[in-house]
């Protein structure tokens, strides 16, 4: 967006972030790409991190995030507003990620230069090595889970969703979410006990 237009909108009270989500959706339905860009800025990180937690590969997660937003743009007319837009977008992304994992059926590859938490430039090498070790260990433990179990771990422990939001995102009941979460955490605990030797 042009800087002058941005300043003018802030001055006149037309800042896109101050608009309600429903107004942005209506503008998107009318074909306003700028409004959709605002939604992208607001929700891209949540969608990206949810997908990344499932697929484990930043490159694939980035592609799937774009795909998820593109599908959301195409299906925006079918969004009825029963759930939050963030939940709806995460749902699209999670389903894409699960399909991607099932289709690929290969171990996700993580590049060594994965920029974790803003980079390792400002921390000492010992801490960076610990973080790398922890990241790889947990990633391997999550990858050992089935895709649906990965999804509940990501949505609950990484995105902080409650059970009802998770049920909406996964398209199942709350009881089913609890059962999946119980099984996923039990499997994850067993894997981490093996990988970390009982002292994570």
């Amino acid at each position: 967006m042009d800087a002058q237009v941005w300043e003018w909108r802030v001055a006149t009270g037309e800042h896109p972030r101050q608009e309600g989500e429903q107004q942005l959706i209506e503008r998107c339905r009318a074909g306003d790409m700028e409004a959709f860009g605002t939604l992208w800025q607001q929700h891209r990180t949540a969608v990206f991190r949810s997908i990344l937690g499932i697929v484990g590969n930043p490159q694939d997660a980035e592609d799937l995030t774009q795909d998820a937003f593109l599908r959301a743009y195409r299906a925006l007319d079918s969004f009825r507003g029963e759930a939050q837009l963030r939940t709806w977008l995460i749902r699209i992304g999670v389903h894409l990620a699960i399909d991607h994992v099932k289709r690929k059926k290969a171990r996700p590859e993580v590049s060594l230069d994965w920029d974790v938490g803003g980079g390792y430039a400002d921390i000492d090498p010992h801490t960076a090595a610990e973080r790398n070790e922890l990241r790889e260990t947990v990633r391997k433990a999550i990858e050992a889970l089935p895709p649906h179990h990965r999804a509940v771990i990501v949505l609950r422990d990484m995105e902080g969703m409650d059970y009802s939001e998770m049920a909406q995102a996964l398209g199942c009941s709350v009881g089913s979410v609890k059962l999946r979460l119980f099984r996923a955490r039990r499997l994850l605990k067993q894997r981490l006990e093996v990988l970390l030797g009982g002292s994570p």
Partner: protein
Amino acid sequence: MKRLLCRWVEYYLALCEDDIEPGLPGWVRRHLQSCARCQAEANAYRRAREAVRRYARLLPDAPVGGWQPVQVHAERKQRVFPLQVALAPVAVAVVALIGFVVWQRASAPVDDGVPQTQIAQIAQPSQQEAVERAKKVVAPAAKGTQRKQNPPAQRVGPEPNRPAPSLRQAPSPPVHRPPKRILVAAQPLAQTAPETETQPAAESLPEVEVPVQPVLVEASPPATRDIPEAYVVQPAYAAAAGGVE
């Protein structure tokens, strides 16, 4: 082996978000204080939860430059005329054409390439055609009966008490006609002598092949065709007439 109570405790521990969740039932807390195995399970779940949360904090944010491809795709989607919309009229036209062809084929009469006039001739053959067809059927059978040389007078003779009815008085064929059945007998064309004379002369005469004329004893026409009554000869009448045609 875990006790059933410990399994239920593990379920609550797995879904517990903090070390001691306020919503945790009282019996679970009391069990945790007394069961060492469940205490170890609770510590293991807590460590796993902390590891996942630390891992979540290490996840990177979404790349900033990811908006461009989405924008390009979305704008292209707005510009490009949908293929489904473009192909819809073509599909409708094709379906209509196929339906018209099928309807034409269904409504047209089945002629098998035969003209209508020829079909009429087949349906109502002339008398000459009927005679020729009957002869074709009779000819091979007549050859087999020729060598027997049995005079018809010895085989089938007229009954003395019963007058021989004429062919004109033959009853008309029934409506329900029997299946197609042809019986053939042979009669010499030359008029033979009376029965008493032919018997001694037969030994002296040389073996000459006598031309025979097939006699149609019974020939029922097909149900679909009308053949004049003259060609339908009942066996009884033929015997009474001495094998006359």
